[in-house]
């Protein structure tokens, strides 16, 4: 079996989303995530990654490193960038209007990211943002 790297470093660009997905997919298979759990973590990582490509490096393009490891029955993904400090856990104001007219088209990414994982942590370390996303093998709360 092909050995999966424990991290990948990429230029933070939308074109590389496929590589990110493949990396997360391989790790999901290795941990044995249910197909639902795999989608959950793919979604969370996509949202975080896409935001880095859009917002973290306003002046230039920077790099992203994604680390993966297994902790018992959980997949742990860490996403590191050197962009502007941004803590997605803080100060998320939720104002989702139910009228189409008032509703903004954006502002859903971080909200979805946080709602589809079993754990999330943010840390500013030196000049890096370090986001940890945790997903259990199976979503059923009895497993």
């Amino acid at each position, binding site marked *: 079996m092909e050995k999966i790297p424990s991290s990948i470093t990429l230029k933070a660009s*939308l074109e590389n*989303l*496929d590589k990110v997905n493949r990396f997360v997919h391989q790790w999901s298979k290795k941990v044995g995530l249910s197909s*639902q759990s795999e*989608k959950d973590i*793919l*979604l969370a990582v*996509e*949202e975080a990654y*896409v935001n880095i490509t859009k917002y973290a490096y306003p002046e230039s393009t920077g790099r992203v490193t994604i680390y993966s490891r297994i902790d018992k029955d959980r997949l742990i993904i860490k996403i590191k960038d050197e962009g502007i400090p941004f803590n997605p856990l803080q100060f998320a104001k939720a104002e*989702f209007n*139910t*009228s*189409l*007219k008032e*509703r903004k*088209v*954006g502002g*859903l*990414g971080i*909200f*979805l990211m946080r*709602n*589809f994982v079993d754990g999330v942590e943010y840390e500013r370390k030196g000049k890096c943002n370090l986001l940890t996303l945790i997903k259990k093998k199976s979503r059923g709360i009895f497993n």
Partner: protein
Amino acid sequence: MQINQKKEGEVYTFFLNGRFDAHSAGEVEEKLDLAVSQGAQKLLVDLSGVEYISSAGLRVLLAIAKKLKEKEGQIKLCCLQPYVKEVFDVAGLTQIFKIYGTHQEGIDSF
């Protein structure tokens, strides 16, 4: 993402097939925008072939919905797979979009 289009009466149906993510959102938006700019007022997006959607996909659908509202048109959705349905739910979009179980119900609703 594979996008097929079909016109039935005044309704333009778009059949999406694949992952509706940040990668494919651009293409989908182009196709829908084109139809709207050519005067389509009644859009039905058939999501039966979509097993994954992220906020980028939702953003496209919301943007088109807003454009159509201004022109007094409407976008409706049908055939959401369970996972996609859940994403809509969590995002609070099931109240905003008209969503139908089958393609035919979608068509008939216009």
